[in-house]
Protein backbone atom coordinates (compact mmCIF):
# COMPACT_ATOMS: atom_id res chain seq x y z
CA UNK A 1 0.00 0.00 0.00
CA UNK A 2 1.49 3.37 -0.91
CA UNK A 3 2.07 5.17 2.33
CA UNK A 4 1.17 8.83 2.45
CA UNK A 5 2.14 10.11 -0.94
CA UNK A 6 1.80 13.84 -0.43
CA UNK A 7 -0.55 15.63 -2.80
CA UNK A 8 0.89 18.09 -5.26
CA UNK A 9 -0.45 21.10 -3.38
CA UNK A 10 0.59 21.40 0.23
CA UNK A 11 -1.96 23.95 1.36
CA UNK A 12 -5.68 23.41 1.09
CA UNK A 13 -6.40 26.48 -1.00
CA UNK A 14 -8.15 27.09 -4.27
CA UNK A 15 -6.33 27.39 -7.53
CA UNK A 16 -7.12 30.11 -10.06
CA UNK A 17 -10.76 31.29 -10.29
CA UNK A 18 -13.19 31.34 -13.24
CA UNK A 19 -12.72 28.40 -15.38
CA UNK A 20 -14.57 27.51 -18.55
CA UNK A 21 -13.51 30.59 -20.50
CA UNK A 22 -9.80 30.09 -19.79
CA UNK A 23 -10.11 26.47 -20.79
CA UNK A 24 -11.66 27.54 -24.06
CA UNK A 25 -8.93 30.16 -24.52
CA UNK A 26 -6.20 27.59 -24.17
CA UNK A 27 -7.89 25.35 -26.72
CA UNK A 28 -8.05 28.23 -29.20
CA UNK A 29 -4.37 29.01 -28.58
CA UNK A 30 -3.38 25.41 -29.26
CA UNK A 31 -5.44 25.51 -32.44
CA UNK A 32 -3.98 28.81 -33.63
CA UNK A 33 -0.46 27.52 -33.02
CA UNK A 34 -1.20 24.94 -35.69
CA UNK A 35 -0.60 26.87 -38.96
CA UNK A 36 -2.07 24.28 -41.30
CA UNK A 37 -5.19 24.05 -39.18
CA UNK A 38 -5.72 27.78 -39.63
CA UNK A 39 -5.25 27.39 -43.38
CA UNK A 40 -7.77 24.54 -43.39
CA UNK A 41 -10.22 26.57 -41.36
CA UNK A 42 -9.78 29.51 -43.75
CA UNK A 43 -10.40 27.33 -46.82
CA UNK A 44 -13.59 25.94 -45.33
CA UNK A 45 -14.88 29.37 -44.35
CA UNK A 46 -14.25 30.67 -47.88
CA UNK A 47 -15.92 27.67 -49.51
CA UNK A 48 -18.94 27.90 -47.21
CA UNK A 49 -19.32 31.64 -47.85
CA UNK A 50 -19.03 31.16 -51.60
CA UNK A 51 -21.54 28.33 -51.66
CA UNK A 52 -23.89 30.11 -49.29
CA UNK A 53 -23.83 33.66 -50.61
CA UNK A 54 -22.28 33.44 -54.10
CA UNK A 55 -25.44 32.49 -56.01
CA UNK A 56 -27.27 35.55 -54.60
CA UNK A 57 -24.58 37.87 -55.94
CA UNK A 58 -24.19 36.17 -59.30
CA UNK A 59 -26.20 37.60 -62.23
CA UNK A 60 -26.54 34.08 -63.68
CA UNK A 61 -28.71 31.10 -62.86
CA UNK A 62 -26.92 27.76 -62.62
CA UNK A 63 -29.50 26.02 -64.83
CA UNK A 64 -30.00 28.66 -67.53
CA UNK A 65 -28.80 27.32 -70.87
CA UNK A 66 -27.18 29.76 -73.29
CA UNK A 67 -26.04 27.78 -76.33
CA UNK A 68 -24.57 30.82 -78.08
CA UNK A 69 -21.96 31.26 -75.32
CA UNK A 70 -21.00 27.64 -74.80
CA UNK A 71 -17.41 26.63 -73.94
CA UNK A 72 -16.53 30.16 -72.94
CA UNK A 73 -13.00 30.11 -71.50
CA UNK A 74 -12.39 31.53 -68.02
CA UNK A 75 -11.71 35.24 -67.42
CA UNK A 76 -13.33 36.19 -70.73
CA UNK A 77 -16.34 38.44 -70.63
CA UNK A 78 -19.09 38.24 -68.02
CA UNK A 79 -18.52 34.60 -67.08
CA UNK A 80 -15.59 34.74 -64.65
CA UNK A 81 -14.85 31.02 -64.70
CA UNK A 82 -16.19 30.46 -68.21
CA UNK A 83 -19.18 28.41 -69.34
CA UNK A 84 -19.79 24.69 -69.86
CA UNK A 85 -20.98 22.70 -72.86
CA UNK A 86 -24.49 24.14 -72.54
CA UNK A 87 -23.32 27.70 -71.88
CA UNK A 88 -24.19 27.61 -68.16
CA UNK A 89 -22.10 29.85 -65.89
CA UNK A 90 -19.35 27.76 -64.27
CA UNK A 91 -18.92 29.91 -61.17
CA UNK A 92 -22.60 29.80 -60.28
CA UNK A 93 -22.72 26.07 -60.95
CA UNK A 94 -19.64 25.48 -58.79
CA UNK A 95 -21.22 27.46 -55.97
CA UNK A 96 -24.53 25.62 -56.18
CA UNK A 97 -22.66 22.30 -56.42
CA UNK A 98 -20.72 23.34 -53.32
CA UNK A 99 -23.97 23.70 -51.43
CA UNK A 100 -24.91 20.15 -52.28
CA UNK A 101 -21.48 18.60 -51.78
CA UNK A 102 -20.85 20.38 -48.47
CA UNK A 103 -24.36 19.62 -47.23
CA UNK A 104 -24.04 15.94 -48.13
CA UNK A 105 -20.57 15.87 -46.53
CA UNK A 106 -21.66 17.46 -43.26
CA UNK A 107 -24.96 15.60 -42.99
CA UNK A 108 -23.28 12.26 -43.69
CA UNK A 109 -20.64 13.13 -41.08
CA UNK A 110 -23.27 13.91 -38.43
CA UNK A 111 -25.18 10.73 -39.21
CA UNK A 112 -22.16 8.43 -39.28
CA UNK A 113 -20.60 10.00 -36.18
CA UNK A 114 -23.82 9.64 -34.19
CA UNK A 115 -24.35 6.03 -35.29
CA UNK A 116 -20.73 5.14 -34.70
CA UNK A 117 -20.67 6.77 -31.28
CA UNK A 118 -23.82 5.05 -30.07
CA UNK A 119 -22.74 1.62 -31.34
CA UNK A 120 -19.21 2.13 -29.97
CA UNK A 121 -20.29 3.27 -26.53
CA UNK A 122 -22.78 0.41 -26.16
CA UNK A 123 -20.21 -2.17 -27.27
CA UNK A 124 -17.43 -0.70 -25.15
CA UNK A 125 -19.48 -0.19 -22.00
CA UNK A 126 -21.37 -3.47 -21.88
CA UNK A 127 -18.68 -5.64 -23.49
CA UNK A 128 -19.41 -9.34 -23.29
CA UNK A 129 -22.00 -10.73 -25.69
CA UNK A 130 -23.47 -7.34 -26.66
CA UNK A 131 -20.03 -5.92 -27.31
CA UNK A 132 -18.88 -8.91 -29.33
CA UNK A 133 -21.99 -9.01 -31.50
CA UNK A 134 -21.88 -5.27 -32.23
CA UNK A 135 -18.18 -5.24 -33.01
CA UNK A 136 -18.43 -8.31 -35.26
CA UNK A 137 -21.13 -6.46 -37.23
CA UNK A 138 -18.72 -3.55 -37.50
CA UNK A 139 -15.94 -5.86 -38.69
CA UNK A 140 -18.25 -7.47 -41.24
CA UNK A 141 -19.25 -4.06 -42.61
CA UNK A 142 -15.60 -3.05 -42.82
CA UNK A 143 -14.84 -6.12 -44.92
CA UNK A 144 -16.71 -4.71 -47.92
CA UNK A 145 -14.76 -2.22 -50.00
CA UNK A 146 -16.85 0.89 -49.36
CA UNK A 147 -17.06 1.92 -53.04
CA UNK A 148 -18.60 -1.43 -53.97
CA UNK A 149 -21.00 -1.23 -51.07
CA UNK A 150 -21.87 2.31 -52.07
CA UNK A 151 -22.50 1.43 -55.71
CA UNK A 152 -24.47 -1.68 -54.82
CA UNK A 153 -26.69 0.33 -52.51
CA UNK A 154 -26.97 3.24 -54.92
CA UNK A 155 -28.06 0.91 -57.71
CA UNK A 156 -31.10 -0.17 -55.70
CA UNK A 157 -32.07 3.15 -54.16
CA UNK A 158 -33.62 6.07 -56.03
CA UNK A 159 -30.89 8.74 -55.99
CA UNK A 160 -31.80 11.83 -53.97
CA UNK A 161 -29.97 14.13 -51.59
CA UNK A 162 -31.30 12.22 -48.58
CA UNK A 163 -30.67 8.72 -49.90
CA UNK A 164 -27.11 9.59 -50.94
CA UNK A 165 -26.40 11.06 -47.53
CA UNK A 166 -27.75 7.97 -45.79
CA UNK A 167 -25.81 5.62 -48.06
CA UNK A 168 -22.55 7.50 -47.49
CA UNK A 169 -23.15 7.53 -43.74
CA UNK A 170 -23.88 3.80 -43.83
CA UNK A 171 -20.38 3.11 -45.13
CA UNK A 172 -18.63 5.53 -42.79
CA UNK A 173 -19.81 4.86 -39.23
CA UNK A 174 -17.67 1.77 -38.56
CA UNK A 175 -14.37 3.55 -37.98
CA UNK A 176 -16.03 5.86 -35.48
CA UNK A 177 -17.60 2.87 -33.72
CA UNK A 178 -14.22 1.17 -33.40
CA UNK A 179 -12.56 4.30 -32.10
CA UNK A 180 -15.28 4.99 -29.54
CA UNK A 181 -15.41 1.36 -28.42
CA UNK A 182 -11.68 1.35 -27.65
CA UNK A 183 -11.90 4.69 -25.82
CA UNK A 184 -14.90 3.69 -23.75
CA UNK A 185 -13.41 0.33 -22.83
CA UNK A 186 -10.36 2.11 -21.44
CA UNK A 187 -12.36 4.86 -19.72
CA UNK A 188 -14.88 2.45 -18.15
CA UNK A 189 -12.30 1.20 -15.64
CA UNK A 190 -11.05 4.65 -14.67
CA UNK A 191 -11.69 5.71 -11.08
CA UNK A 192 -14.29 8.34 -11.90
CA UNK A 193 -16.41 5.81 -13.80
CA UNK A 194 -16.24 3.37 -10.87
CA UNK A 195 -17.09 6.26 -8.54
CA UNK A 196 -20.15 7.09 -10.65
CA UNK A 197 -21.19 3.45 -10.41
CA UNK A 198 -20.72 3.57 -6.62
CA UNK A 199 -23.08 6.55 -6.56
CA UNK A 200 -25.77 4.51 -8.26
CA UNK A 201 -25.64 6.36 -11.58
CA UNK A 202 -27.79 4.75 -14.30
CA UNK A 203 -25.89 3.20 -17.23
CA UNK A 204 -26.98 5.81 -19.76
CA UNK A 205 -25.74 8.55 -17.40
CA UNK A 206 -22.32 6.88 -17.09
CA UNK A 207 -22.07 6.30 -20.83
CA UNK A 208 -23.18 9.67 -22.17
CA UNK A 209 -22.31 12.03 -19.34
CA UNK A 210 -19.20 10.54 -17.78
CA UNK A 211 -17.46 8.62 -20.57
CA UNK A 212 -18.35 10.29 -23.89
CA UNK A 213 -17.23 13.82 -22.88
CA UNK A 214 -13.82 12.30 -22.11
CA UNK A 215 -13.62 10.84 -25.61
CA UNK A 216 -14.75 13.96 -27.45
CA UNK A 217 -11.33 14.87 -28.87
CA UNK A 218 -10.83 11.73 -31.00
CA UNK A 219 -14.50 11.73 -31.98
CA UNK A 220 -14.35 15.31 -33.29
CA UNK A 221 -11.19 14.55 -35.23
CA UNK A 222 -12.74 11.45 -36.77
CA UNK A 223 -15.80 13.54 -37.63
CA UNK A 224 -13.82 16.15 -39.59
CA UNK A 225 -11.98 13.43 -41.47
CA UNK A 226 -15.38 11.89 -42.18
CA UNK A 227 -16.58 15.11 -43.83
CA UNK A 228 -13.67 14.96 -46.24
CA UNK A 229 -14.34 11.32 -46.91
CA UNK A 230 -18.07 11.95 -47.50
CA UNK A 231 -17.36 14.76 -49.97
CA UNK A 232 -15.04 12.43 -51.87
CA UNK A 233 -17.54 9.59 -51.85
CA UNK A 234 -20.32 11.86 -53.07
CA UNK A 235 -18.03 12.91 -55.93
CA UNK A 236 -17.24 9.28 -56.76
CA UNK A 237 -20.83 8.18 -57.00
CA UNK A 238 -21.96 11.32 -58.82
CA UNK A 239 -19.02 10.88 -61.18
CA UNK A 240 -20.11 7.31 -61.80
CA UNK A 241 -23.61 8.55 -62.48
CA UNK A 242 -25.46 7.13 -59.47
CA UNK A 243 -25.39 10.22 -57.31
CA UNK A 244 -26.82 13.68 -57.72
CA UNK A 245 -28.68 13.68 -61.05
CA UNK A 246 -28.22 16.40 -63.69
CA UNK A 247 -29.15 19.11 -64.28
CA UNK A 248 -28.65 19.73 -60.53
CA UNK A 249 -24.89 20.28 -60.18
CA UNK A 250 -22.56 18.59 -57.72
CA UNK A 251 -18.78 18.69 -57.87
CA UNK A 252 -18.80 15.00 -58.77
CA UNK A 253 -21.25 15.14 -61.66
CA UNK A 254 -19.60 18.32 -63.01
CA UNK A 255 -16.40 16.31 -63.26
CA UNK A 256 -18.33 13.51 -64.91
CA UNK A 257 -19.70 15.85 -67.59
CA UNK A 258 -16.26 17.34 -68.11
CA UNK A 259 -14.47 14.17 -69.14
CA UNK A 260 -15.55 14.30 -72.80
CA UNK A 261 -14.14 17.81 -73.16
CA UNK A 262 -10.93 17.24 -71.23
CA UNK A 263 -8.71 18.32 -74.11
CA UNK A 264 -10.93 20.99 -75.66
CA UNK A 265 -12.20 22.70 -72.48
CA UNK A 266 -10.00 21.58 -69.56
CA UNK A 267 -11.38 24.23 -67.15
CA UNK A 268 -14.61 22.23 -66.97
CA UNK A 269 -12.67 19.53 -65.10
CA UNK A 270 -10.08 21.67 -63.34
CA UNK A 271 -12.47 23.86 -61.34
CA UNK A 272 -14.66 21.17 -59.77
CA UNK A 273 -11.53 19.04 -59.22
CA UNK A 274 -9.83 21.91 -57.44
CA UNK A 275 -12.94 22.54 -55.34
CA UNK A 276 -13.00 18.91 -54.18
CA UNK A 277 -9.28 18.97 -53.41
CA UNK A 278 -9.56 22.23 -51.48
CA UNK A 279 -12.51 21.06 -49.42
CA UNK A 280 -10.95 17.68 -48.59
CA UNK A 281 -7.55 19.10 -47.63
CA UNK A 282 -9.28 21.88 -45.68
CA UNK A 283 -11.20 19.42 -43.56
CA UNK A 284 -8.14 17.19 -43.10
CA UNK A 285 -6.04 20.13 -41.84
CA UNK A 286 -8.90 21.20 -39.59
CA UNK A 287 -9.02 17.70 -38.13
CA UNK A 288 -5.30 17.79 -37.33
CA UNK A 289 -5.66 21.15 -35.63
CA UNK A 290 -8.68 20.08 -33.61
CA UNK A 291 -6.81 17.05 -32.36
CA UNK A 292 -4.20 19.35 -30.85
CA UNK A 293 -6.72 21.90 -29.64
CA UNK A 294 -8.76 19.30 -27.78
CA UNK A 295 -5.81 17.63 -26.08
CA UNK A 296 -5.11 19.53 -22.84
CA UNK A 297 -1.89 17.56 -22.30
CA UNK A 298 -0.23 19.63 -25.03
CA UNK A 299 -0.50 22.64 -22.73
CA UNK A 300 2.63 21.61 -20.90
CA UNK A 301 4.96 22.85 -23.63
Amino acid at each position, binding site marked *: *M*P*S*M*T*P*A*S*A*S*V*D*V*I*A*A*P*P*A*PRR*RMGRGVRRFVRHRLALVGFGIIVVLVLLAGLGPYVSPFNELTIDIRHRFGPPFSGAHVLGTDQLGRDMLTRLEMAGRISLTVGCAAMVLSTLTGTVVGVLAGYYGGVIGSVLMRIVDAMLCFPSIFLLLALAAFVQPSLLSITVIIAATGWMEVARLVEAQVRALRD*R*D*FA*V*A*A*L*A*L*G*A*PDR*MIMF*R*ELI*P*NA*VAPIVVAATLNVARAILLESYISFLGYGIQPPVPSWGNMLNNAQEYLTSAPWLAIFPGAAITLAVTGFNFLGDGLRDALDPRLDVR
Partner: protein
Amino acid sequence: MTEPVLEVSGLSVRFRTDAGVVPAVNDVSFVLKRGETLALVGESGSGKSVTSLAVMRLTPAPPGCEVRGRATLSRVGELLSLPEAQMREVRGSRIAMVFQEPMTSLNPVLPIGEQIAEPLRYHRGMARAAALREAAKLLELVGIPEPGKRLASYPHQLSGGMRQRVMIAIALACDPDVLIADEPTTALDVTVQAQILELLKALQARTGMAMLFITHNLGVVAEVADRVMVMYAGRVVEQAPVRELFRAPLMPYTRGLLRSVPKLAPLEALGAPLTAIPGNVPDPANLPGGCAFAPRCADVRKVVCEAELPELDAVGAEHLVRCVRWRELAA
Protein backbone atom coordinates in the same frame (compact mmCIF):
# COMPACT_ATOMS: atom_id res chain seq x y z
CA MET B 1 -25.45 4.61 19.20
CA THR B 2 -27.16 1.29 19.55
CA GLU B 3 -29.28 0.87 16.44
CA PRO B 4 -27.43 -1.38 13.95
CA VAL B 5 -27.43 0.07 10.44
CA LEU B 6 -25.37 -2.46 8.55
CA GLU B 7 -24.93 -6.09 9.57
CA VAL B 8 -22.49 -8.19 7.59
CA SER B 9 -22.28 -11.88 8.37
CA GLY B 10 -20.23 -14.68 6.89
CA LEU B 11 -19.05 -12.57 3.94
CA SER B 12 -16.72 -14.50 1.62
CA VAL B 13 -15.34 -13.35 -1.72
CA ARG B 14 -13.50 -15.68 -4.10
CA PHE B 15 -11.84 -14.72 -7.36
CA ARG B 16 -11.46 -17.30 -10.10
CA THR B 17 -8.17 -16.69 -11.84
CA ASP B 18 -5.90 -18.64 -14.15
CA ALA B 19 -3.87 -19.59 -11.08
CA GLY B 20 -6.95 -21.12 -9.43
CA VAL B 21 -9.54 -19.91 -6.96
CA VAL B 22 -8.27 -17.10 -4.75
CA PRO B 23 -10.19 -16.60 -1.52
CA ALA B 24 -9.79 -12.84 -1.00
CA VAL B 25 -12.21 -12.52 1.92
CA ASN B 26 -13.18 -15.35 4.30
CA ASP B 27 -16.12 -15.39 6.65
CA VAL B 28 -16.04 -11.72 7.66
CA SER B 29 -18.79 -10.56 10.03
CA PHE B 30 -19.33 -7.18 11.63
CA VAL B 31 -22.03 -4.80 12.76
CA LEU B 32 -22.04 -1.10 12.08
CA LYS B 33 -24.20 1.02 14.37
CA ARG B 34 -25.74 4.40 13.76
CA GLY B 35 -23.30 7.24 14.34
CA GLU B 36 -20.25 5.05 14.93
CA THR B 37 -17.04 4.58 13.01
CA LEU B 38 -15.57 1.15 12.43
CA ALA B 39 -12.01 1.15 11.17
CA LEU B 40 -10.92 -1.70 8.93
CA VAL B 41 -7.16 -2.10 9.23
CA GLY B 42 -4.73 -4.32 7.39
CA GLU B 43 -1.87 -4.52 4.93
CA SER B 44 -2.29 -4.54 1.16
CA GLY B 45 -4.02 -7.70 0.05
CA SER B 46 -5.65 -8.32 3.42
CA GLY B 47 -9.09 -8.04 1.83
CA LYS B 48 -10.27 -4.80 3.39
CA SER B 49 -11.09 -3.02 0.11
CA VAL B 50 -12.66 -6.15 -1.37
CA THR B 51 -14.89 -6.38 1.71
CA SER B 52 -16.23 -2.88 1.10
CA LEU B 53 -16.63 -3.43 -2.64
CA ALA B 54 -18.56 -6.64 -1.94
CA VAL B 55 -20.96 -4.77 0.34
CA MET B 56 -21.47 -2.19 -2.44
CA ARG B 57 -21.87 -5.05 -4.93
CA LEU B 58 -19.10 -3.58 -7.08
CA THR B 59 -16.98 -6.72 -7.36
CA PRO B 60 -16.61 -8.19 -10.86
CA ALA B 61 -19.48 -10.23 -12.35
CA PRO B 62 -20.15 -13.79 -11.08
CA PRO B 63 -18.10 -16.19 -13.18
CA GLY B 64 -14.88 -14.40 -12.20
CA CYS B 65 -15.85 -13.51 -8.69
CA GLU B 66 -18.13 -15.21 -6.19
CA VAL B 67 -19.62 -13.47 -3.15
CA ARG B 68 -21.29 -15.38 -0.31
CA GLY B 69 -22.82 -14.32 2.98
CA ARG B 70 -25.27 -11.65 4.04
CA ALA B 71 -25.13 -7.87 4.30
CA THR B 72 -28.28 -6.39 5.79
CA LEU B 73 -28.87 -2.66 5.56
CA SER B 74 -31.57 -1.31 7.86
CA ARG B 75 -34.81 -0.31 6.10
CA VAL B 76 -33.58 -1.90 2.86
CA GLY B 77 -32.86 -5.54 3.60
CA GLU B 78 -30.29 -8.00 2.36
CA LEU B 79 -28.02 -6.29 -0.18
CA LEU B 80 -26.19 -9.25 -1.68
CA SER B 81 -29.39 -10.77 -3.08
CA LEU B 82 -31.01 -7.49 -4.11
CA PRO B 83 -31.83 -7.10 -7.83
CA GLU B 84 -29.32 -4.86 -9.61
CA ALA B 85 -31.91 -2.16 -10.36
CA GLN B 86 -32.77 -1.77 -6.67
CA MET B 87 -29.11 -1.92 -5.70
CA ARG B 88 -28.53 1.08 -7.94
CA GLU B 89 -31.08 3.03 -5.95
CA VAL B 90 -29.34 2.05 -2.72
CA ARG B 91 -25.86 3.02 -3.93
CA GLY B 92 -25.21 6.69 -3.44
CA SER B 93 -28.46 7.29 -1.59
CA ARG B 94 -28.38 4.91 1.42
CA ILE B 95 -24.77 3.77 1.28
CA ALA B 96 -22.09 5.91 -0.33
CA MET B 97 -18.38 5.67 -0.89
CA VAL B 98 -15.36 7.98 -0.86
CA PHE B 99 -12.33 6.72 -2.72
CA GLN B 100 -8.62 6.95 -2.09
CA GLU B 101 -7.55 9.07 -5.04
CA PRO B 102 -9.31 12.40 -5.25
CA MET B 103 -7.17 13.15 -8.31
CA THR B 104 -8.75 10.47 -10.47
CA SER B 105 -12.15 9.88 -8.87
CA LEU B 106 -13.64 13.08 -10.27
CA ASN B 107 -14.55 13.35 -13.93
CA PRO B 108 -11.89 15.64 -15.45
CA VAL B 109 -14.20 17.21 -18.05
CA LEU B 110 -17.30 18.02 -15.96
CA PRO B 111 -17.61 21.06 -13.67
CA ILE B 112 -17.76 19.97 -10.04
CA GLY B 113 -21.20 21.52 -9.54
CA GLU B 114 -22.63 19.17 -12.15
CA GLN B 115 -20.90 16.22 -10.52
CA ILE B 116 -22.38 17.00 -7.10
CA ALA B 117 -25.80 17.66 -8.59
CA GLU B 118 -25.89 14.36 -10.48
CA PRO B 119 -26.80 11.97 -7.63
CA LEU B 120 -29.46 14.46 -6.48
CA ARG B 121 -30.96 14.39 -9.94
CA TYR B 122 -31.18 10.65 -10.35
CA HIS B 123 -31.85 9.64 -6.74
CA ARG B 124 -34.08 12.51 -5.69
CA GLY B 125 -35.45 13.41 -9.12
CA MET B 126 -34.48 17.06 -8.61
CA ALA B 127 -34.44 19.50 -11.53
CA ARG B 128 -31.03 20.75 -12.66
CA ALA B 129 -31.35 24.25 -11.18
CA ALA B 130 -32.57 22.98 -7.82
CA ALA B 131 -29.84 20.33 -7.71
CA LEU B 132 -27.19 22.98 -8.41
CA ARG B 133 -28.50 25.16 -5.58
CA GLU B 134 -28.31 22.11 -3.31
CA ALA B 135 -24.78 21.45 -4.59
CA ALA B 136 -23.72 24.93 -3.51
CA LYS B 137 -25.06 24.22 0.00
CA LEU B 138 -23.16 20.96 0.08
CA LEU B 139 -19.93 22.70 -0.94
CA GLU B 140 -20.42 25.11 1.91
CA LEU B 141 -21.06 22.17 4.24
CA VAL B 142 -17.72 20.59 3.36
CA GLY B 143 -15.95 23.89 3.96
CA ILE B 144 -15.29 25.23 0.48
CA PRO B 145 -15.35 29.03 0.39
CA GLU B 146 -17.45 30.89 -2.18
CA PRO B 147 -19.41 27.73 -3.08
CA GLY B 148 -21.55 29.52 -5.69
CA LYS B 149 -18.49 30.43 -7.76
CA ARG B 150 -16.83 27.05 -7.27
CA LEU B 151 -19.68 25.19 -8.97
CA ALA B 152 -18.26 26.01 -12.40
CA SER B 153 -14.71 24.92 -11.53
CA TYR B 154 -13.14 21.88 -13.09
CA PRO B 155 -11.36 19.29 -10.92
CA HIS B 156 -7.91 20.27 -12.23
CA GLN B 157 -8.38 23.74 -10.80
CA LEU B 158 -8.65 22.44 -7.24
CA SER B 159 -6.00 21.18 -4.83
CA GLY B 160 -5.99 17.59 -3.58
CA GLY B 161 -7.68 18.48 -0.31
CA MET B 162 -10.35 20.48 -2.11
CA ARG B 163 -11.03 17.62 -4.46
CA GLN B 164 -11.44 15.21 -1.56
CA ARG B 165 -13.90 17.69 -0.02
CA VAL B 166 -15.81 17.66 -3.29
CA MET B 167 -15.81 13.84 -3.28
CA ILE B 168 -17.22 13.93 0.25
CA ALA B 169 -19.88 16.43 -0.84
CA ILE B 170 -20.88 14.08 -3.67
CA ALA B 171 -21.00 11.08 -1.34
CA LEU B 172 -23.09 12.95 1.22
CA ALA B 173 -25.43 14.58 -1.32
CA CYS B 174 -28.28 12.17 -0.64
CA ASP B 175 -27.67 11.90 3.10
CA PRO B 176 -26.60 8.22 3.26
CA ASP B 177 -26.92 6.02 6.36
CA VAL B 178 -23.54 4.43 5.75
CA LEU B 179 -20.41 6.03 4.34
CA ILE B 180 -17.61 3.73 3.24
CA ALA B 181 -14.35 5.66 3.18
CA ASP B 182 -11.64 3.69 1.39
CA GLU B 183 -8.37 5.27 2.51
CA PRO B 184 -9.74 8.77 1.94
CA THR B 185 -6.67 10.53 3.30
CA THR B 186 -3.89 8.30 2.00
CA ALA B 187 -3.14 10.48 -1.01
CA LEU B 188 -3.14 13.75 0.95
CA ASP B 189 -0.61 15.78 2.92
CA VAL B 190 -0.54 15.26 6.65
CA THR B 191 -2.01 18.69 7.43
CA VAL B 192 -4.76 18.22 4.86
CA GLN B 193 -5.37 14.70 6.20
CA ALA B 194 -6.16 16.12 9.60
CA GLN B 195 -8.58 18.64 8.08
CA ILE B 196 -10.40 15.95 6.13
CA LEU B 197 -10.64 13.70 9.20
CA GLU B 198 -12.05 16.58 11.26
CA LEU B 199 -14.53 17.32 8.48
CA LEU B 200 -15.69 13.69 8.34
CA LYS B 201 -16.12 13.58 12.13
CA ALA B 202 -18.07 16.85 12.14
CA LEU B 203 -20.33 15.68 9.33
CA GLN B 204 -20.89 12.38 11.10
CA ALA B 205 -21.90 14.17 14.32
CA ARG B 206 -24.32 16.24 12.30
CA THR B 207 -25.98 13.51 10.22
CA GLY B 208 -25.58 10.45 12.45
CA MET B 209 -24.29 8.34 9.58
CA ALA B 210 -22.22 5.25 10.28
CA MET B 211 -18.73 5.11 8.80
CA LEU B 212 -16.71 2.15 7.64
CA PHE B 213 -13.23 3.58 7.51
CA ILE B 214 -10.67 1.57 5.59
CA THR B 215 -7.07 2.43 6.26
CA HIS B 216 -3.62 1.05 6.94
CA ASN B 217 -2.67 4.09 8.97
CA LEU B 218 -2.99 3.46 12.69
CA GLY B 219 -2.59 7.17 13.44
CA VAL B 220 -5.76 7.80 11.45
CA VAL B 221 -7.48 4.94 13.29
CA ALA B 222 -6.72 6.50 16.67
CA GLU B 223 -8.12 9.78 15.35
CA VAL B 224 -11.49 8.68 13.96
CA ALA B 225 -12.48 5.17 14.99
CA ASP B 226 -14.79 3.95 17.72
CA ARG B 227 -14.04 0.31 17.04
CA VAL B 228 -11.29 -1.38 15.04
CA MET B 229 -11.31 -4.54 13.01
CA VAL B 230 -7.90 -5.90 12.00
CA MET B 231 -7.79 -8.10 8.90
CA TYR B 232 -5.04 -10.45 7.82
CA ALA B 233 -5.07 -12.64 4.68
CA GLY B 234 -8.80 -12.18 4.19
CA ARG B 235 -9.86 -12.94 7.75
CA VAL B 236 -10.71 -10.86 10.79
CA VAL B 237 -7.94 -11.50 13.30
CA GLU B 238 -8.88 -9.04 16.02
CA GLN B 239 -11.76 -6.72 16.72
CA ALA B 240 -11.98 -4.34 19.69
CA PRO B 241 -12.98 -0.85 20.81
CA VAL B 242 -10.22 1.52 19.76
CA ARG B 243 -8.85 2.28 23.27
CA GLU B 244 -8.73 -1.36 24.23
CA LEU B 245 -6.98 -2.31 21.02
CA PHE B 246 -4.29 0.31 21.46
CA ARG B 247 -3.86 -0.46 25.17
CA ALA B 248 -3.98 -4.21 25.13
CA PRO B 249 -3.67 -5.77 21.67
CA LEU B 250 -3.87 -9.55 21.89
CA MET B 251 -3.18 -10.91 18.44
CA PRO B 252 0.57 -10.89 17.73
CA TYR B 253 -0.14 -9.36 14.31
CA THR B 254 -1.90 -6.36 15.87
CA ARG B 255 0.99 -5.99 18.29
CA GLY B 256 3.42 -6.03 15.39
CA LEU B 257 1.41 -3.39 13.55
CA LEU B 258 1.39 -1.13 16.59
CA ARG B 259 5.12 -1.62 17.16
CA SER B 260 5.93 -0.73 13.57
CA VAL B 261 4.39 2.77 13.86
CA PRO B 262 6.97 5.53 14.39
CA LYS B 263 6.38 7.40 17.65
CA LEU B 264 7.72 10.64 19.01
CA ALA B 265 10.12 9.09 21.52
CA PRO B 266 12.04 10.68 24.40
CA LEU B 267 15.47 11.90 23.29
CA GLU B 268 17.51 9.01 24.70
CA ALA B 269 15.38 6.54 22.71
CA LEU B 270 16.05 8.30 19.40
CA GLY B 271 17.83 6.11 16.92
CA ALA B 272 16.21 2.97 18.26
CA PRO B 273 15.14 0.95 15.19
CA LEU B 274 11.49 0.50 14.29
CA THR B 275 10.33 -3.04 14.66
CA ALA B 276 9.08 -4.30 11.33
CA ILE B 277 7.07 -7.47 10.93
CA PRO B 278 9.36 -9.89 9.08
CA GLY B 279 8.24 -11.45 5.82
CA ASN B 280 5.32 -10.66 3.55
CA VAL B 281 1.59 -11.25 3.43
CA PRO B 282 1.06 -14.84 2.24
CA ASP B 283 -0.24 -15.47 -1.27
CA PRO B 284 -4.01 -15.71 -0.83
CA ALA B 285 -4.17 -18.49 -3.42
CA ASN B 286 -1.83 -20.56 -1.29
CA LEU B 287 -2.53 -19.91 2.38
CA PRO B 288 -0.69 -21.94 5.01
CA GLY B 289 -2.83 -24.41 6.96
CA GLY B 290 -3.55 -23.27 10.47
CA CYS B 291 -3.03 -19.65 11.44
CA ALA B 292 -2.18 -17.57 8.33
CA PHE B 293 0.12 -15.34 10.36
CA ALA B 294 2.13 -18.23 11.88
CA PRO B 295 5.06 -18.02 9.39
CA ARG B 296 5.75 -14.39 10.40
CA CYS B 297 4.75 -14.59 14.06
CA ALA B 298 7.37 -14.00 16.77
CA ASP B 299 5.32 -15.95 19.31
CA VAL B 300 4.64 -18.94 17.09
CA ARG B 301 4.41 -22.41 18.67
CA LYS B 302 5.14 -24.71 15.76
CA VAL B 303 2.72 -27.56 16.36
CA VAL B 304 -0.18 -25.69 17.99
CA CYS B 305 -0.32 -22.77 15.59
CA GLU B 306 0.00 -24.75 12.39
CA ALA B 307 -2.45 -27.49 13.37
CA GLU B 308 -5.69 -25.75 12.46
CA LEU B 309 -7.26 -22.35 11.87
CA PRO B 310 -7.85 -20.69 15.26
CA GLU B 311 -11.41 -19.68 16.12
CA LEU B 312 -12.38 -16.05 16.60
CA ASP B 313 -12.59 -16.09 20.43
CA ALA B 314 -14.50 -13.58 22.51
CA VAL B 315 -12.20 -11.96 25.05
CA GLY B 316 -14.74 -9.52 26.39
CA ALA B 317 -18.13 -8.25 25.31
CA GLU B 318 -16.68 -6.42 22.32
CA HIS B 319 -13.20 -7.83 21.96
CA LEU B 320 -12.61 -10.73 19.56
CA VAL B 321 -9.29 -12.34 18.72
CA ARG B 322 -8.17 -15.13 16.42
CA CYS B 323 -5.13 -16.74 18.10
CA VAL B 324 -4.74 -20.03 19.95
CA ARG B 325 -2.24 -18.54 22.39
CA TRP B 326 -4.00 -15.30 23.33
CA ARG B 327 -4.55 -16.41 26.95
CA GLU B 328 -0.82 -17.13 27.44
CA LEU B 329 0.21 -13.96 25.58
CA ALA B 330 -2.17 -11.75 27.56
CA ALA B 331 -0.74 -12.99 30.83
